[in-house]
């Protein structure tokens, strides 16, 4: 870990100002990903702005009938909030399927969205990685890539985004509210927050330098059956091989897909609105959805199994919805 200076401002505005005042500054909230990366010198901030004292830790109703989740709401608290459990079950389910109790107690809403990939070549500083060292190459291509992306990847990077929470937020059409150092705020649809790797996999989000996530807003509840199915080799405390976030309506044994997003497949949470539209109103068939979702899939050497896995997991999740199972 490289040396850094540290400060703990008392407001969001001060935090944003502090971040631009010092070149190389970074915000730290839960720290569960950033500190790990700092120990390996994958992240080397010269200044840490500790945002744990700036509020932004409440979940409040919005005028539109949704919820505004403060950036610093801990994953545990978000998953446990009665309104989230009642109206946004897919989000609660996704969060508790990730990490461990200890990590969820510390990790924040914003930090979870901004966590970086778990590609082992990104973590191994002796390996080429365009995300960590732009231009050095991608060691995962031609290497061990059983858990890498099959969708939206590029010649430069085949890493996946590791968040479960973000997949549910993608299904829920969340918006990310930010504050720029100038004080200007904006709202970013979660679909646009994360970028595909393209030629610049080190640029992972559309946030500007010093731009701080202040909150995530959820639109008014969509209702329906909300499921999150996470597939993994270990029963807990493991990253997803594939995950499915499903919001569906069940009428007379027919399952109609309302929202559908996938994790473990791409550099960002993956949702194909076209697939949702294609099956809108009809009893959902996993194959017709998967055909559309996987149309552009380009598996690497070792992860082609994700193609049938997506299909089968989706099928199982739709069946669970049909049976009224809750997860």
């Amino acid at each position: 870990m490289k040396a850094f200076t540290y400060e703990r401002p008392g407001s969001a505005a001060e935090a944003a100002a502090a971040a631009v005042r010092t070149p190389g500054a970074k915000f730290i909230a839960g720290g569960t990903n950033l500190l790990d990366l700092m120990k390996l010198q994958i992240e080397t901030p010269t200044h840490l702005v500790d945002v744990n004292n700036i509020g932004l830790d409440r979940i409040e109703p919005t005028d539109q009938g949704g919820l505004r989740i403060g950036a610093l709401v801990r994953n545990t608290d978000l998953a446990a909030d009665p309104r989230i459990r009642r109206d946004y079950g897919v989000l609660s389910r996704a969060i508790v399927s990730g990490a461990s109790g200890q990590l969820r107690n510390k990790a924040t809403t914003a930090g979870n969205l901004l966590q970086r990939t778990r590609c082992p070549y990104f973590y191994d500083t002796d390996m080429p990685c365009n995300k960590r060292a732009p231009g050095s190459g991608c060691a995962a291509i031609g290497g061990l890539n059983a858990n890498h992306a099959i969708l939206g990847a590029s010649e430069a990077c085949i890493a996946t985004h590791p968040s479960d929470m973000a997949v549910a937020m993608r299904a829920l059409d969340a918006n990310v509210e930010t504050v720029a150092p100038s004080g200007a705020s904006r709202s970013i649809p979660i679909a646009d927050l994360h970028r595909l790797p393209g030629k610049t996999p080190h640029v992972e989000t559309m946030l500007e330098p010093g731009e701080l996530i202040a909150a995530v807003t959820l639109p008014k509840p969509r209702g329906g059956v909300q499921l999150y199915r996470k597939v993994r080799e270990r029963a807990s405390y493991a990253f997803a091989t594939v995950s499915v976030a499903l919001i569906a309506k069940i009428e007379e044994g027919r399952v109609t897909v309302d929202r559908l997003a996938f994790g473990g497949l791409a550099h960002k949470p993956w949702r194909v609105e076209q697939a949702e539209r294609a099956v809108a109103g009809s009893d959902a068939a996993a194959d017709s959805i998967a055909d559309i979702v996987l149309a552009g899939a380009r598996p690497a050497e070792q992860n082609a199994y994700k193609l049938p896995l997506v299909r089968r997991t989706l099928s199982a999740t739709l069946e669970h919805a049909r049976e009224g199972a809750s997860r």
Partner: protein
Amino acid sequence: MIGAGINRIDGPLKVTGRAAYSYERQDAGQPFYGFIRGAAIGKGKIAGIDTAEAEAAPGVRLVLTHRNVPKQGAFVNKPTIFDRPHPQLTSDRIEYFGEPVAFVVADTFERARAAAALVKVTYAREDGAFDLANHADRAEPQATLSIGLPGETRFGDLEAAMSAGPVTIDQTYTTPYHFSQPMEPHACLADWRDDHLTVYLATQTVAQNRIALAETLGLAADQVTVDAAFVGGGFGSKLYLHAEAVLAALAARELAHPVKVALTRRQVFTLTGHRPEMIHRVRLAATSDGQLTGLGHDVNLQAAVAEPWIEQAATVARSLYAAPNRLTRHSITNLDLKAAEAVRGPGELPGLLAFETAMDELANALDVDPVELRLKNDTAIDPELGVPLNGRRLADCLREGAKRFGWGQRPKTPGSRREGDHLVGYGMAVGIRMHFQGATGAVVRIDPDGRVIVRSDTPDIGTGTYTIAGQIAAEALGIGVNRVTVQLAHSDFPPSAGAGGSWGASNLSIAIDLACQKIRNKIVEAAGPGAAPNDILADVGRWFPEGVEATGQTIGQADDPNFKNYSQNTYGAAFAEVAVDIATGEVRLRRMTGVFAAGRIINAKTARSQLMGGMIWGVSSALHEAAHVDPRHGNWVNGDLAEYLMPVHADIPAIETVLLDDYDEHANHLGIKGVGELGVCGTGAAVSNAVFNATGIRVRDFPITLSKLLSGLPPMRTAA
């Protein structure tokens, strides 16, 4: 007292955080901190190394590289293994990925870690051979295994038996690299003062590592003290001397100041040894009613030719089943990886995973019950050594296990039982583990005030050694265990064969018991007819105002006729039920029963725990664990605990662990054998066979991950 399942006597210290492991010892005062920088290539040379910036960094006291490292003793490939010197930073050559290229010492951990990153290293990279599959044609047959057994055994004509059949199995299995990964990373606190080195070392072998360290540093053994009072697990990986101990000691001597270093978790992958990857060919020939006529096991395993560890994986069938035609062989394939080492269940874990899966294939081919197949081929005489198999209770384990588990409810047809979203299957396998005996000493002292002290250099690595040593002494002296103080794992105490290989308990128990017998004899001699045998402590106070002391010595197996006249093993049978998600292929263990015969059990509680833990290792070997090498670079790709999967709580249901009431009079005069390895033996195959029974899919490339099952699972409803 022997047999009682008493609580661990070191338990209260451990559960309250007061047990100090090596890195945590405060004995030497405030130490400096070391940090190891590893090579970024798998093979080649250091082209340039610039330490100026690191040396100038705040708090840095020393930067060692191959240019300035003090002279060290050369590596010697001694057959005793754990006392081999392991000099570090000896040249500009890089033999394996992550090999230490620099060692940085600073006044704080944070500064040492940061400064280590400031060392600038450039490399002349050479092409290396890093993957077994593509270099398997290099395999060289081995005449002798690392533990001294023959590499090849041959009886009759296996080829002829295979031709004759009528029922044969000839399959290839692969078992991957495994790591011990104890929860305590390998660590050393080295204190050099007055021409004497004291190391607080996370080790399984005190006397052996003392010699190894002394020879590495060019010291006499009595200039080195090793203290390993608490060790946070070993599983083989702390048998050997590693870089952290040598570098901490070198730096402490250079700086005349204590230095401590712990490997990072990633370095536990690069700087300690792994279980080698293996390609197994198993051949079985049987009559149509299931009598084995031939068995063969060929293993080709990775090795580093400079320090080959030839794991005894093809020995597992040698004493397991009768068959007239037999062939077991080992070959090694030299790769540019770090030397492999013993990992828990060396030989047995991978060997039985392959062999007992093959036996299940045979049972399936014969359409006989897998339990019946094992019973039919049971033997009282070692088929290869021709001597009796003492304590052979394999059939008892099988019958008891089958009964407890409800084996009769097994789905007879693979892939036939569905419960909800899951395919359910039962599997079983047997375990066998060689029993060894190594020279071990213990000293027992009784103070005039009645305090009893037992000392030996055997460490307690979680094995319950503190507790059972107290129980053995208490039994031998006819006193309460609370009267006994046990002091272990210090090089001032009598040397032992160490903690590893499932022999610590028996080695140490014999020595303690012999010491106690000597004390009893001394008392009888002193007291004559007036001795009060029921109150030995009172007698000591009366006849020995200075206290009394005696040393007991366990002899090595080469000198013990029991090990010539008998084939010494422990036995077990494991039964597992798994559920396989019909959609995703995720495999989860539902329940497991293991029944074991391991001689007399000293502590029913700690022995059961150790076996249970071993069984979970078996589960892990079947379903979870594998370390992957990048064949282009030679690095461990999944070198952390998020990617190298070991089971977590959610993977493990309640596990029934049963110890048969046993006493093996031909093992030693106490009837004791060991349990450290036994739990891992065959339990992986029980799970593997259960997956087959659940799905009808036979995976021969371990571990059984979901991607290997997906294509064989039944079709899903994917259309509306």
